[in-house]
């Protein structure tokens, strides 16, 4: 049974594994995930006075960890922040996917059918593929994609967190989706 008074010394053994798995599911880097968990514990220790006994200690720690993860995405995006014109960061731009003159799909980029996606890849393989493809996105695009579709923040919240305009946000989301789609096809989707 969860004690009504938090005992910080017990947090690593009691909640460490669960928090670590959660952090690692977002950042894909063991060292960073460990740091996020440690920061969570230290922030919780600093904020012990704000803990309300009627809330679950576990829930409280997860709320803090989620905030740390958002902060991590923000640092990731801001570390390599570039202007709208430079958003490709050396990666693909929309010009790589569409014919510049007609605005229609470039021949090699036309989406293949994923009708048999489930048959093509086992669920575990699919999850690994999307994680690998997410990890390959340029920093800003990866952060925006994760904040929107994994953390499920709204577009407004993301713009506020990252200090970007709505049009900048739309470009980042669109390019992230285009690159992810292409990457997933390279991993076997639509090839059967």
């Amino acid at each position, binding site marked *: 049974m969860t004690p009504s008074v938090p005992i910080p010394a017990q947090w690593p053994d009691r909640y460490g594994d669960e928090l670590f798995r959660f952090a690692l599911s977002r950042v894909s880097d063991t060292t960073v995930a460990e740091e996020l968990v440690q920061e969570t514990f230290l922030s919780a220790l600093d904020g012990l006075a704000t803990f309300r006994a009627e809330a679950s200690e576990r829930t409280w720690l997860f709320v803090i960890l989620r905030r740390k993860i958002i902060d991590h995405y923000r640092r990731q995006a801001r570390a390599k922040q570039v202007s709208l014109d430079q958003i490709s960061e050396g990666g693909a731009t929309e010009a790589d996917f569409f014919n510049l003159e007609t605005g229609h*799909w470039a021949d090699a980029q036309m989406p293949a059918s994923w009708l048999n996606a489930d048959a093509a890849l086992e669920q575990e393989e699919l999850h690994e593929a999307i994680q690998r493809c997410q990890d390959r996105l340029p920093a800003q695009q990866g952060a925006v994609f994760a904040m929107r579709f994994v953390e499920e923040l709204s577009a407004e919240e993301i713009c506020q967190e990252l200090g970007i305009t709505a049009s900048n946000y739309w470009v980042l989301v669109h390019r992230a989706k285009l690159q992810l789609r292409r990457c997933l096809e390279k991993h076997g989707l639509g090839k059967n």
Partner: protein
Amino acid sequence: MLRLITCQNATRLLDQQPDRALLWGPRASLWVHLRYCPYCKRYAKQTVLMAEWARAAASAREQTGPALSAAAKERMRERLAAGA
């Protein structure tokens, strides 16, 4: 006003649609485009699937990932003791 749009514009609209309701004009243009463009029609489904899979993949890893190492737990206990 109903305007013919390119695949580039159609896919942009598709990626904006979940976050903001499209005005009548762009919505109608997108609808018409999707009626004749099989590739954007595929993209419309795939862009939704990718978002679902990313969420599902993260949820799966929350359950099946590795545990925190004993050394890391010890380091954290020490930091907590030092900060208490």
